[in-house]
């Protein structure tokens, strides 16, 4: 174990997987010099055949990922900011997510797409989206939302070694956060939620970047005599329903915290699952703490206003904890 930064954990995973399998290649805009730091140093070690800057042409990059994967490579495509996924969305939604079924299973697409998401740093609307809900709705792609450096490393390795397209959502705004990372080679399985903190009164389900404020909220709640269990799904596709249902059967009260816009968010979907499969256990309304259905504003005070905070989580959790 050693304390490492989130981007450093990603960087290590890339180094180790590229060493491990010569079929792993990395491309994207400015990956050679690494604006986020996550691809730093790969060029020196692996050369331009394995890692390469591309022109700015996202529509082609996502399509190329499909083609190169079909041709036998394990593709890591860096799309920088999540908003640029939209620019390359055609090949994501129409090809990557559908080709395996359409070809009767002939095509296997081991593709990992990295992109930084989220607001909180006055990057304004075109650099602050959290688009995992759109990806979840596509049906044919995995979605990983690592919250900690350890999970970032382990989930990225699973993605790269996997056989299916995976969107690896980088918690860019909080890329500097550090955490303990296990030594040596390890992977974190998809579809296994982590219980980040045990508790008995209320379940907080926190997605990606939201783990930190949820844990902060849990501390505050404890001071108020409310014991919060905090669950981090780690991957949204596949999704670990069991762990969440188990927790909710115990607590009967839930707050889902998601940095996505509210409408059709992961939070909505998790709430829907609970309203269906945990109905008998629910003792209070299922609350969502999300970003309202707006574009992210630039001014720091305005952004803070729409951003999920510890305080929002505490008040939602307190409300459901008190509900009869």
């Amino acid at each position: 174990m050693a304390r490492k930064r989130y981007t450093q954990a990603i960087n290590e995973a890339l180094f180790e997987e590229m060493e491990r399998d010569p079929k792993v290649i990395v491309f994207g805009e400015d990956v050679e010099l690494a604006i986020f730091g996550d691809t730093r140093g790969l060029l020196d070690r692996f050369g331009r055949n394995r890692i390469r800057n591309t022109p700015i042409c996202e529509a082609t990059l996502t399509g190329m990922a499909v083609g190169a994967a079909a041709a036998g490579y394990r593709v890591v495509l860096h799309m920088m900011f999540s908003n640029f996924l939209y620019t390359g969305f055609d090949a994501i939604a129409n090809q990557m997510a559908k080709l395996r079924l359409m070809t009767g299973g002939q095509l296997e697409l081991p593709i990992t797409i990295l992109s930084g998401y989220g607001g909180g740093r006055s990057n304004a609307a075109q650099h602050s989206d959290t688009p995992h809900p759109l990806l979840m709705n596509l049906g044919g792609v995995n979605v990983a939302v690592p919250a900690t450096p350890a999970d970032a490393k382990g989930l990225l390795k699973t993605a790269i070694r996997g056989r299916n397209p995976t969107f690896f959502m980088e918690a860019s705004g909080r890329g500097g956060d550090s955490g303990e990372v296990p030594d040596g080679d390890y992977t974190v399985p998809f579809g296994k939620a982590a219980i980040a903190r045990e508790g008995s009164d209320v379940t907080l389900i926190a997605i990606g970047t939201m783990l930190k404020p949820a844990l902060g909220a849990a501390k505050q709640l404890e001071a108020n005599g409310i014991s919060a269990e905090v669950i981090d799904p780690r991957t949204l596709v596949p999704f670990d329903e069991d762990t969440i249902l188990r927790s909710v059967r115990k607590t009967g009260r839930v707050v889902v915290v998601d940095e996505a816009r509210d409408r059709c968010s992961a939070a909505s979907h998790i709430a829907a699952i609970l309203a269906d499969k945990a109905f008998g256990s629910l003792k209070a309304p299922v609350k969502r703490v999300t970003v309202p259905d707006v574009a992210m504003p630039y001014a720091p005070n305005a952004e803070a206003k729409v951003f999920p905070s510890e305080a929002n989580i505490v008040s939602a959790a307190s409300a459901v904890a008190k509900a009869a």
Partner: protein
Amino acid sequence: MTTQPSGGPTPEQSLALYERMLLIRRTEEKLSADAAAGVLPGAVHLYIGQEAVATGVCMQLKDSDWITSTHRGHGHFLAKGGDVNAMMAEIWGKKTGICKGMGGSMHVADLSKGILGANGIVGGGLAISVGAAFGSKLSNDGRVTVCFFGDGAANQGVFMECLNVSSLWELPVVFVCEHNHFCEFTRAEQVTSGEIINRARAFGIHAVKVDGNDVEAVWRATAEAVALARSGKGPCFIEAETYRIKGHMEFEKELLAGGKYRELDEIEQWRARDPITRHGERLVKAGIATAAQLEEIGARVARQVEEAVAFSHRSEPADESLVFDLMFAGQKP
């Protein structure tokens, strides 16, 4: 590949080109009839009149070379050596279909023959082909990727992005633009500014125009383009002029409810340049085949198509549970 001194096909190759074009034609004529009879699921976009392009190009390729195709993909599939039974069964939505009935007409693919797939998205194959060619470049596996696309797709920005990337990285890809004069019900000239070939040239790509209704001309142009691409000198571009004899899709008349976008005259003029008839006449004239031998080929092809239909009919419907098994590799949706 042995070529004539002129670079033209040998007599055997010429005959093979004829037979392959005829297979495409007869298969699609049957599809047209079945569509009209209302017995096929989905829609079919027929390649009739354009057979010389797919055939002239694909018969220059090895099984290991890749192609990407379009919504009008039956011709490319068969030309590249895809199995007619498996394609027909796919269009019938059967379990024995090349995609197990999951893809249908617009998505026929056969990886064992290097057919990365037809595509329902106009321009959808372009970046995929560049990705595959990038793979070949990295592995140095000597493969060439051919990307088929229409005059309409040439207006998609992704086309020009792909020209840029492939030229920059000297990828072994050949772009084959089939200029059949239409994008659905819109004439190409209504939506195309300048010459498409100049778009390729702007990126420093070797580019030629060819008569897309002359299978030997296509064959020769492809020989040169593929050789260049295979030698590591980067992409080539071929613009093949041809004509879409049938409607954009079967049922188009019903859809358009009397709306008209071209004169029958024009179709007749192009019928006179039919690539199969033309090549047949050439074979006879050159003494490569007699009329009787061509008829024999015709009969063989007819039997093949009949068998494909029979195969489709006797095949079981698609296995529904596969929808859940095939979405992901080793994972449930």
